[in-house]
């Protein structure tokens, strides 16, 4: 997480007493108000912003607050040494996580206050904090070896960072008995073609396929994550495939998992690849993810389209990583979800 303080006061850094802290705060910057719009627009990482309203005209404060409220990757606090805000509670109702008046500044805001602020934020903005932790971890994790936004720069034999997707049908143990080997083989082949065609529209490539599922790779450029939209659509439109495309007589259920990870890339003999990321996505898909669900690591949400974040809820921790689960669409009127 980054901290960004907008203030005209030169004494503000001294009063705020904020500093970098490993695993919590990656960067602290104090900038003038004239940079407010541009910096807010350019901020992509989860950021805690403080806005010093001492030099802002009262009539324009609401506009600044609106801008802060718009950005989903931003939490904000207000610095109000002059006591301009009459209804402080309203600030918190609208989304603020901190309010510093003259007294709080004089007593020194500091890192202990930041801890309190983050504890409070955890209750009201859990997805922000998950993304913030991911962002901080991302700066500590193995460096990205960007594969780019397309496949053009990926060369077999090299190691790259990809968005890795795991897809697998549920209840695979009962399928052969239920459908017979010949019918099952036809239905599985059609399922594979469906997944292959679906991911292709988002730049995904089927990399490994086992009878009931496989691994898809998407090039990763650390700017966007089209694989998140792909997985989201896969779950949202699943029932149309069930009716129009599936060779299975009943509704299908499958798990999807998405993470960002490094792996050596080869086109042949993929079974011999040694990769922690590959192991980890199999564990996540087969040991953690519940049938019919789409799970992602928090790092994925950091790069995916921000409007999809509301559709993910915390699902727990697995192998030291925060996992989020997509809320399930309910199409059938007499079922909770499927």
């Amino acid at each position, binding site marked *: 997480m980054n901290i960004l303080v907008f203030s005209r006061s030169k004494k503000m850094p001294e009063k705020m007493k904020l500093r970098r802290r490993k695993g919590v705060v990656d960067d602290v910057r104090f900038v003038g108000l004239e940079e407010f719009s541009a910096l807010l627009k350019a901020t992509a990482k989860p950021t805690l912003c403080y806005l010093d309203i001492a030099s802002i005209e009262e009539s324009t404060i609401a506009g600044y607050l609106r801008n802060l409220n718009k950005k989903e990757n931003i939490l904000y606090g207000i610095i109000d040494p002059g006591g301009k805000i009459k209804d402080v509670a309203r600030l918190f109702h609208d989304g603020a996580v901190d309010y510093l008046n003259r007294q709080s500044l004089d007593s020194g805001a500091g890192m202990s206050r930041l801890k309190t602020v983050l504890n409070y934020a955890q209750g009201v903005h859990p997805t922000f904090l998950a993304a913030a932790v991911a962002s901080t971890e991302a700066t500590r994790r193995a460096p990205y070896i960007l594969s780019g936004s397309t496949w053009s720069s990926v060369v077999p034999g090299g190691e790259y960072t990809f968005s890795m997707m795991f897809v697998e049908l549920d209840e695979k143990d009962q399928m052969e008995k239920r459908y017979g080997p010949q019918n099952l083989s036809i239905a599985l082949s059609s399922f594979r073609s469906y997944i292959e065609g679906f991911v292709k529209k988002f730049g995904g490539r089927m990399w490994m396929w086992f009878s009931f599922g496989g691994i898809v790779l998407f090039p990763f450029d650390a700017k966007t994550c089209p694989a998140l*939209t792909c997985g989201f659509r896969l779950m*949202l439109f699943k029932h*149309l495939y069930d009716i129009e495309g599936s060779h299975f007589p009943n509704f299908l259920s499958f798990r999807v998992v998405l993470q960002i990870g490094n792996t050596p890339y080869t086109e042949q003999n993929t079974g011999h690849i040694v990769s922690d990321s590959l192991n980890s996505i199999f564990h996540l898909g087969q040991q953690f993810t519940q049938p019919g669900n789409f799970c992602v690591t928090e790092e994925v949400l950091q790069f995916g389209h921000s*409007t999809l974040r509301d559709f993910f809820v915390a699902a727990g921790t697995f192998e030291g990583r925060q996992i989020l689960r997509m*809320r399930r669409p309910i*199409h*059938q*009127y007499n079922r909770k*979800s499927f």
Partner: protein
Amino acid sequence: MKISPRLQSYISQALSQSMEVTLMERLAARVIGGYDLYERTGFPANIPIPQVDAARQIAEDLARSGNIHRFTELLVEVDRTGVMGRPVSIRLLPQIVKELEVLGYRFKEDQGIFIEAGARGKTKGWGVLIEGQIYELSFLRIDTVDNTALVRKYSKRLVVQVYNELRRLFSGIVENRDGRLWQWEGDGGVAAFYYGNKNIQAVLSGMEMLLELFMYNRFQCPFSKPLQVRLAVHTGPCPFYVNFERIRSDTLRRLEVIESEFAENDSLVVTPGVFSDMGNKLHSFFKPLRVSRHNLLYQYKLRWE
């Protein structure tokens, strides 16, 4: 539909070399109602019509009535399944199919039907329907919720842009299922389905539209609130005219009433005639909606856990 002399000749040869006259006439009557070969050829009723003459007359009449593609679908069916348990092998069938493809049709193997191929452009009548004739069709109607409020709130340019995107989305979904956009008026329109499982195609198009609109609202919609629509599917007889304004149809009138009075925002409603044709899998997505003492509709809506 323009028919090449070669296609007409292939049909004529295929008939004369593959079946007797009575079967030819029976098949022709299945696509041209009340077809009477004696009346058409002018042969006296007590004289058997030679096979070649019968075949030539039928091919000519099929070409004139624009029914060659329908007749070819029938020939394919006869070739595959026979007639009354008796196998009938149709000669020159691959050549006939190829000729129709040259004319801009695509044969859909799974459904055994010909439809217009995209490269030659898509017409409202699939290049097949004849002006003024009545057909059994399924219709999907879409309408934007609160159009007046949107027009007042946003600039004309923005509203036009959004409605154009809505139209593009809708017609793309409809045409993917061999439907055709028959009418579009600013904020909504009507699509028709004629081929295959037309009710299912119309219903799936409506469901897909709701889901695509959900994604559009998240990713692209420039309005401050999500764009909402109402959708309805109804089936029944309707005359075909390229000019939609000329169509007078109870089916379309009822469709409009159902959509405007009974469809909730962001929902799709279908009539019982459509519902009964949808099959068990699709049934499970629809909730019965009692709209009056004697009338039921069925509703689909996307919800989230």
